[in-house]
C-alpha cells in the first residue's frame, strides 16, 4: 500500500494526464452507458484530487519537473509544473469533475443513448488535451495535446441537438485547425532556430538568437494561434455559434476550460518562452493585445445586451470576459497579471455555473430540436416568469450574473479589483475606466435576464414547469457557491494567482500587493 502511495506521489504530474488519457479508451471498451459515466466520474474526481495534491506540493516544494521515460530534457520530454500551471490544472480538473455530475441528465436529453460512451470518451479526451497542454514542458507537446483537445471538442460540439451544431463544429474545426497550425508553425520555427523543444531550454536559448527573424515570426504565429483558440476579438468568429449549439454541459465545460488553457498558452509563451525582454520590451506585443482586449471587453458586453438567446448572450459575455483576462496580461504589471490569472479561474467558475443553470432550463423545456416550439428553449421569451417556477435555477443565474457584473462579495469583483489596480499601477487610468464601463454594460445584460425571470408573467399556464433535478442543480450551485465563497475568502485564489504572476514576471516579484 505504501508502495502504491509512493508511486502515486512520485508520479503526480504524469498521472494528471495519464488518468483521463487512459480512461477515455476504457470508456470505449466498457461501452455501457452508465458504467462509462462512473468510470469518467471516478477518474475526473481522482484527477481533481491529484491536481490539488500537485498544487499543494508545488507550493510547498517549488516547481516540479518530471522526465517522461526517464530521459532528461532536452532529449526527453519534460512535464514541468509551477504555480501557474498548477493553478490552471486545478481549475480544469475541478470544472471537469463538477460538470460531469450534471452530464448524464443532460446527455440523456440531448444525445442519443448509443453515443453516450463515446461522448464521455470525447469529454475525457478533451480533458486530457487541456491537462496535457497545461502540464507540458515541451513545445511540441503543447501542439499534440492542443490537437487532442480540439478534435474532441469538435466532436462534442457536433453532438448538439440542433442541426446547426454540425456547421458550428465544422466552422470551429476549420478555424481551430488554423490556430493549431499556426502554433505548430511557430513551434517548428522555434525548433529550427534553437534546436530544442523544451520550454525552459527555449527560454534560455532564445535570447542568444535575439532579433532572429525566424523567432519573431514564430512569436507572431504562436500568438495568433493562441488568440484564435482564445477567441480574442477579432478572431472569435467560431465561438458564439459553437457555444450556442453545443450540448448544454459541453458548453459549460468548454467555456470554463478551453479558452482558459489557451490563455495559459499565450501567457506562457509570451512571458516565459519569449521572455518579457523580447515580447514586451522589444516587440511591444502588449500594445497590440491591449486595444484588442479592450475592444473585446466592450464589444462582447455590448453584443450580449442585444442578444435574445441566453446561451448566445453568455457566449458573447465570454468574449467580453476573455477581454478582461487579456487586459490583465497586456498591462504587464503584477496586479494586472494577478487579476488576469485570477479571472481565468473566477470566470471559469461563474461562467460554468451560468451555463449549467442554462442546462437546467434546457432540461425542463426540452431542447429546440426535440420539441415542437419554434423558439429555442434558451430564448429569452421562454424564460418569462421562470423565477417562480424554477426558483433555484433562477437564483443561481442571478448570482452568477452578479458575479459577472463584479458585484462585491463575488469572484467577479475580486478579478476586477486587481485589474483596476493593475491599470492604475501601469498608469493607465483609462483602462480602468473602460473596465468599469464594461462592467456597467454587464449590468444591462444580466438585468435583462433578471427582468424576464422575475418580472415577466409566464406566457401560459400549461407552460409551468418544475425545478430541475438536483443532479444538475447541485453542480450549478456548487459553482455558483464557489464563486461566492472565493469572492469573500479570496486568500487561496488570489495567493495562487499572484504566485503564478510572479512565475511569469519574476522581475516584478517584489512589486504590487
Amino acid at each position, binding site marked *: 500500500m505504501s508502495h502504491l502511495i509512493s508511486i502515486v506521489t512520485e508520479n503526480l504530474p504524469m498521472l494528471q494526464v495519464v488518468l483521463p488519457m487512459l480512461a477515455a479508451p476504457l470508456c470505449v471498451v466498457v461501452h455501457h452507458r452508465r458504467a462509462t459515466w462512473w468510470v469518467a466520474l471516478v477518474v475526473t474526481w481522482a484527477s481533481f484530487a491529484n491536481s490539488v495534491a500537485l498544487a499543494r506540493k508545488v507550493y510547498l516544494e517549488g516547481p516540479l519537473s518530471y522526465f517522461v521515460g526517464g530521459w532528461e530534457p532536452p532529449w526527453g520530454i519534460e512535464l514541468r509544473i509551477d504555480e501557474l500551471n498548477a493553478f490552471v490544472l486545478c481549475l480544469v480538473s475541478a470544472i471537469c469533475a463538477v460538470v460531469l455530475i450534471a452530464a448524464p441528465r443532460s446527455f440523456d436529453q440531448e444525445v442519443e443513448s448509443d453515443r453516450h460512451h463515446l461522448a464521455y470518451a470525447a469529454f475525457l479526451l478533451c480533458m486530457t488535451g487541456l491537462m496535457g497542454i497545461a502540464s507540458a514542458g515541451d513545445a511540441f507537446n503543447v501542439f499534440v495535446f492542443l490537437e487532442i483537445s480540439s478534435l474532441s471538442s469538435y466532436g462534442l460540439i457536433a453532438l448538439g441537438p440542433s442541426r446547426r451544431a454540425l456547421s458550428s463544429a465544422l466552422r470551429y474545426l476549420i478555424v481551430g485547425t488554423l490556430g493549431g497550425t499556426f502554433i505548430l508553425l511557430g513551434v517548428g520555427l522555434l525548433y529550427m532556430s534553437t534546436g530544442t523543444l523544451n520550454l525552459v531550454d527555449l527560454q534560455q536559448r532564445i535570447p542568444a538568437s535575439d532579433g532572429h527573424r525566424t523567432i519573431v515570426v514564430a512569436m*507572431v504565429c504562436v500568438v495568433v494561434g493562441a488568440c484564435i483558440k482564445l477567441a480574442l476579438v477579432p478572431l472569435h468568429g467560431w465561438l458564439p455559434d459553437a457555444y450556442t449549439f453545443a450540448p448544454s454541459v459541453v458548453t459549460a465545460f468548454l467555456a470554463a476550460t478551453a479558452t482558459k488553457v489557451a490563455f495559459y498558452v499565450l501567457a506562457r509563451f509570451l512571458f516565459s518562452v519569449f521572455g518579457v525582454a523580447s515580447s514586451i520590451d522589444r516587440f511591444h506585443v502588449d500594445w497590440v493585445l491591449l486595444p484588442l482586449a479592450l475592444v473585446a471587453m466592450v464589444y462582447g458586453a*455590448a453584443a450580449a445586451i442585444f442578444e435574445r438567446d441566453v446561451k448566445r448572450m453568455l457566449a458573447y459575455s465570454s468574449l467580453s470576459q476573455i477581454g478582461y483576462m487579456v487586459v490583465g496580461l497586456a498591462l504587464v504589471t503584477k496586479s494586472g497579471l494577478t487579476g488576469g490569472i485570477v479571472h481565468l479561474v473566477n470566470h471559469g467558475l461563474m461562467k460554468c455555473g451560468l451555463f449549467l443553470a442554462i442546462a437546467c432550463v434546457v432540461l425542463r423545456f426540452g431542447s429546440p430540436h426535440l420539441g415542437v416550439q419554434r423558439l429555442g428553449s434558451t430564448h429569452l421569451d421562454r424564460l418569462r416568469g421562470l423565477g417562480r417556477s424554477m426558483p433555484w435555477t433562477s437564483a443561481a443565474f442571478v448570482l452568477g450574473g452578479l458575479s459577472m457584473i463584479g458585484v462585491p462579495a463575488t469572484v467577479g469583483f475580486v478579478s476586477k479589483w486587481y485589474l483596476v489596480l493593475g491599470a492604475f499601477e501601469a498608469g493607465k487610468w483609462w483602462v480602468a475606466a473602460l473596465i468599469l464601463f464594461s462592467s456597467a454594460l454587464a449590468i444591462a445584460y444580466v438585468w435583462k435576464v433578471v427582468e424576464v425571470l422575475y418580472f415577466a408573467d409566464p406566457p401560459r399556464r400549461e407552460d409551468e414547469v418544475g425545478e430541475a433535478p438536483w443532479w444538475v442543480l447541485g453542480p450549478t450551485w456548487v459553482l455558483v457557491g464557489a464563486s461566492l465563497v472565493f469572492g469573500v475568502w479570496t486568500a487561496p485564489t488570489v495567493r495562487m494567482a499572484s504566485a503564478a504572476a510572479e512565475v511569469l514576471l519574476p522581475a516584478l516579484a517584489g512589486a504590487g500587493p
Partner: protein
Amino acid sequence: MTTWLQSLPPGVIMAVGGLLLLALRGRALQFGLVVLPVVSYGHLLALPAEHVVQLTIMGLDLVPVRIDRLAMVWGHVFHWAAILSAVYALHVQDRVQHAAAIAYAGSAVAAVFAGDLVTLFVHWELTAVTSVFLIWSRDDRARKDRDPEECYRAGLRYLIIQVASGVVLLAGICLRWADGGGLEFEGLATGDITSAPLWAQLVFLAFGIKAAFPFLHNWLQDAYPRGTHTGTVFLSAFTTKMAIYALARGFAGTDLLVPLGVAMTLFPIFFAVIENDLRKVLAYSLNNQLGFMCVGIGIGTELALQGAAGHAFAHILYKALLFQSMGAVLWSVGTCKATELGGLFKRLPVTALCCMVAAASISAFPLTSGFVTKSMTLSAAAEGHMTLVWLLLLFASAGVLEHSGIKIPYFAFLAPTKKDWSAIERPPWNMRAAMVTTAVLCLGIGVFPGVLYRFLDFQIEYEPYTALHVVGQLQLLLFATAAFVWLVRIGAYPHEKRATILDFDWIYRRALPAGWDRVVRRSSVFWTRGGRLAENARQDGLVWIQRWVGDGAALTQTRTIRGIALWVLAALAVGLAWVFWLH
C-alpha cells in the same frame, strides 16, 4: 463559537438570512421575517460595547466590525425600525419583497458598523441592489398609485443613482488607495471640503447622493412614493440615515454641510406645500429633516453631533410612523393622493391617531420625540453664533409643521369630503400593532428624554424641557397652526390639485433626453452627408449600437468561414508587420 459570533458583523444575520426567506412561504416566511431582525438585534446587544474585528483580504486591511458609541446609535434604531417594519409588513405574502427588505435592513446595519471604506462600499451597494425590489414589487393594494410601468422606471432611476453613488465612492476609495492612503473609515475630512483632496471630495459626493443633497436629492422624491405600501416604510428608515451616519463619521465639522443642510431644510418645504401625493410630501419632509442632521454634522460640536445622532434616532421612528400611517391609508383606500382622501379618521381612528402622534413628533411638539432631539441642533447653531442659520432652521421648523404636521393628517383624515369610507377595509392587526408601538415609542422618548440620552450613551447634559423652550416652541407651532386655520377660513390656502410637480428630475427625465434627441437628430444630418451611417443614427445612440452589435447585426451575425479566415489572415499580417516594423 463565541469568537466566531463576535467576528460576525452585525446585520449580516439579516443580510444573509434575508436571502433564505426566498425559500420560505406562508407562516414560516412570516416567522422568519420577524425573527431575523430580532435575532440580529440580540446578536448586536451581545457584542461588547467597544469592539473591532480586523481582517486582511487581498492585501487590504479591512475592519468589517467596528462598534463604538456613534455607530451604536444607528445600530439600535436600525434594528428597532427593522423589527417594527417587519411586523408592519407581516400580512404581505411576497417572498421577494420580504427577502429584499430584510437583506436591505441587514446591509444597512452592516454598513453602519463597517470600519473601513471597502466594507462600507460593499454594504453601500448592497443596500442599493436590495432596496430597489421594494419599489419594483407588485402591490395589489396600491394599484391606483403605482402604475407598474412607472414603478419600474422609477426603480431603475433609483437603482442607477444609488449604484452611481457606490461607483463614486469606489472611485474615491481607489484614488485614496492609489495615493497611498489607508482604508480606514474615520474622520475623512473636516473644515473646508473644497480644499480637501479629490478622493475626499468624491467620497463626500457619494455620501451626498445618498443623503439627498440639493440637486442630488430627486431620487428620493421620485422613488419613495412608488414603493409598496410596506416597502416605503423600510426605505424611509435606512438609506438616507446610513448616509447621515457616514457623513457624521467621515465629515463631521465640514463647513459646507451647514449651508447644504440649510438648503435641504428649506426648499422641500415649498414643494411639499403643493404636492398632491401624500407619500411624496413625506419624501420632501424626509429631505427637510435630513437637512437638520446635515447642519448638525456640519457644525461639528459635540452637542451638534449628538443632536444629529439623536435627531436621526427619533426621526427614523416618527418618519417610519408617518409612512406606516400613509401605508395603511394606501392599503385601505388604494391611493395616497390628497385630492382623493379626507375624513378618513372616522373609519381609521387608530391610524389617524398614530399619524397625528407622528405629525406632532416631526413638528417637535413638547412631549414628543422631535421636541427633545431637534432642538439640540438649533441650540448648537445658536451656541456657534450662526444667527442666520439659526433663523433659517427656525423657519424650517415652522415649515415642517406645515407639510408634515398639518397637511398630512389634515388632508388624509380631517379634511371635509363627500366620500363615504364605511365600506373600506381596516388595516390588519399587525399594521395597527406596529403603528401603535411606534407611536408609543415616539411619545415615550418625548416624555423621558433622559432615558434616551442615557441609552444612547450621550456624553453631554442637555435639558430640553426648560420653560422658555416649551413656551417658545408652543408659540411657534400654535401660531403657525392658527395661521393655517386662518388661511383656510379666508380661502387663501391652496386647494389640492392633481398635478406633476417639476423638480430637479426634470433635468434628467426631460431636458437631457430632449437635448440628446436634438443632438442626435442634428448629427444625423451630418451623417447623411457623411455617408452610409445616416439611417442608423436617426433615432438615438442605442439604435446605432444595436445596428452594429444587435441580434444578427453586422458585427454579431454568424461568420462565414471565409470571414473568419480573413480575420485570421489579417491578424497574422498585422502581427508580422508590427514586429518587423519594430525589428
